[in-house]
């Protein structure tokens, strides 16, 4: 990249929030990993990174503090450096410390991992970057990989539409502001010392899970979300609370399939299916049906557009804009706590199947995804599928393992063979 293109970038709507609420006990950093069939060659990986990064200027930026907002500033230095993997992944970003990279690349044996700060991009954008990085890595190893299936041509210059703020583009005339949702059941557990992120990953065959969810008349995401809700409802019941709370999930939706955009930055909204145990006990089939219909009903283009317009209007609020950054961060932190933490029990994200050209398929064994330390919710869940393998990861900061244990036992009882790996040492 010639240095004349060094132009700062305004953060998009979601990025503004993620950068403002970043703190030592919350990590808006997520990780995608590809487990290959061969051991990773760190030198080739580093060359692949150096060749790929110039194509993705937004991933090659650092976060700077402005007077009123953070902004992204492109960096012209080589990097990030591929490092041997560590036991405590998705560490919170320390904006004032470290080397300034918002993207980290790790390798461990056969695994390549990419960690990205959520202000840079969402899962869909990062998967484009990761797919291109993997393709470059394999090309350097001598495999002919075509630029299809969403792999970007690294010899082309970056396209302006890849850097667009799609929220601003699709903000319409009508705004929809949701009312504050009631407080949801919060997961409590024995905390672990700073900075411990336990993760437990279950792998299972996609075809069996797909057949199971089709038999129930729902999609795979809906089925897994319903299992998670069921497990959390049971957990709350075991705790015998004086006042039971609804169990509510946050599920990010990729807006690109509803609002055409090629952006490699954030473009997501969330949907939040919820089950209220105060109304009475529901069977798993009833929970499944509730989740299924809730998600389908809320995937309405017009409502989503009004919601994202509301978010953008909040960001363009003159009063909020004029508050200096050091005061704005706590204000946004409280707003986030009230609107996005308190009403939800946990997050479940499923970026969908990871598709690659047929030439690349035999080179990758499976994919993994993981979210960083949650904002006061202690554990979260993410899944990604590749080929016939679905990997579901629970990541959190509590010593207890009952949520993932009950979740995977539920699937085993439903006839799905599950293979479990974890970084827990005991």
């Amino acid at each position, binding site marked *: 990249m010639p240095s004349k293109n060094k132009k700062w970038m305004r953060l998009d709507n979601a990025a503004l929030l993620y950068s403002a609420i970043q703190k030592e006990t919350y990590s808006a950093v997520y990780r995608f990993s590809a487990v290959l069939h061969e051991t990773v060659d760190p030198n080739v990986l580093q060359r692949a990174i150096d060749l790929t990064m110039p194509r993705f200027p937004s991933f090659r930026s650092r976060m700077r503090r402005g007077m009123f907002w953070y902004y992204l500033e492109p960096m012209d230095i080589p990097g990030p450096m591929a490092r*041997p*993997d*560590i*036991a*405590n992944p998705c*560490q919170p970003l*320390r904006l*004032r*410390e*470290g080397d300034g990279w918002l993207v980290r690349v790790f390798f*461990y*044996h056969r695994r390549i991992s990419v960690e990205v700060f959520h202000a840079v991009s969402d899962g869909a954008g990062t998967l484009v970057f990761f797919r291109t990085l993997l393709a470059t890595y394999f090309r350097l190893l001598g495999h002919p990989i075509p630029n299809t299936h969403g792999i970007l041509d690294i010899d082309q210059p970056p396209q302006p539409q890849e850097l667009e703020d799609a929220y601003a583009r699709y903000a319409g005339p009508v705004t929809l502001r949701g009312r504050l949702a009631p407080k949801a059941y919060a997961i*409590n*557990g*024995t*905390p672990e010392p700073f*900075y411990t992120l336990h*993760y*437990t990953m*279950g792998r299972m065959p996609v075809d069996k899970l797909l057949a199971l969810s089709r038999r129930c008349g729902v999609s795979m995401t809906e089925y897994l979300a319903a299992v998670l809700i069921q497990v959390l409802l049971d957990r709350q019941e075991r705790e015998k609370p004086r006042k039971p709370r609804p169990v509510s999930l946050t599920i990010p939706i990729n807006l690109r399939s509803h609002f055409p955009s090629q952006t490699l930055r954030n473009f997501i909204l969330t949907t939040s299916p919820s089950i209220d145990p105060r109304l009475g006990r529901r069977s798993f089939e009833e929970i499944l049906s509730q989740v299924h219909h809730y998600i389908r009903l809320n995937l309405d283009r017009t409502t989503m557009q009004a919601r994202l317009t509301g978010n953008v209007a909040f960001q363009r609020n003159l009063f909020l804009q004029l508050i200096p950054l050091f005061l704005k961060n706590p204000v946004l932190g409280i707003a986030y706590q009230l609107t996005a933490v308190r009403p939800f029990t946990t997050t479940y994200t499923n970026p969908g199947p990871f598709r690659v050209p047929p030439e690349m398929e035999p080179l990758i064994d499976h994919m993994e995804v993981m979210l960083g330390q949650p904002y*006061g919710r*202690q554990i979260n869940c993410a899944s990604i599928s590749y080929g016939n393998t679905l990997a579901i990861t629970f990541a959190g900061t509590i010593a207890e*393992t009952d949520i*993932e*244990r009950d979740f*995977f*036992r539920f699937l*085993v*009882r439903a006839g799905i*063979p*599950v*293979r*479990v*790996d*974890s*970084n*827990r*040492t*005991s």
Partner: protein
Amino acid sequence: MSYCVHCGVELHDSARACPLCHTPVVDPSKLGAAPPELPPYPTQRAEVPPASKREAALLLTVMLLSVAICCGLLNLFLGRSVPWSAYVIGGAALLWVWVAIPLWFRALPLAVRLILDGVAVGLYVLVIALLADGMVWFKALALPIVLLATAVLLLLGLTLPGRSILSSLSLIFGSIAVFLVGVELCVDRWLTGAWSPGWSIVVLVIAAALCAPLQVVRRVPSLREEVRKLFHL
């Protein structure tokens, strides 16, 4: 390939226990010394290293120095009868000791920093006393209070690190009460010459009333666990 007998999930070959329910993996045919395979995930921990703050310290030093020099020069022309710039220069020096030194020497022990901060405050107050012709109140009021505050902060700085939040809160409340009793002692002796304990006793009682339940929660394990879980400490 092994399976957990309780969860029914397949486990990694290197797993010695099920990560979900902690049931040990026992293979009767491999009870001898089995070489552990590479674990599925790395075991080496790492953290983001702290960045150097020397540039910030340098910037602050230059800023404070320029303020001090400018005020000193201005004082030569404006209001020459009163050495007003000494207040500004003293304030700048105080700020420098408080902020720039910790930025510059990040490895400085907390106790040394607190002593330096206390000495700086004492010297600044001394400058004010000298300029305002107030050595009497400096000796009777300011010096004992500054010394007491430094001693209390030093004690807190040495005892707080590594303590639980409950103990820390008890220590902080207790120190505030002790400090205020000392302040009232000094003020009473300055005003009337004799110590007649009054408002500081109220603070002392309130602090004791706050510390007692905290200590009960700290001593009773079940209560302590409950609080830890509730606040995710």
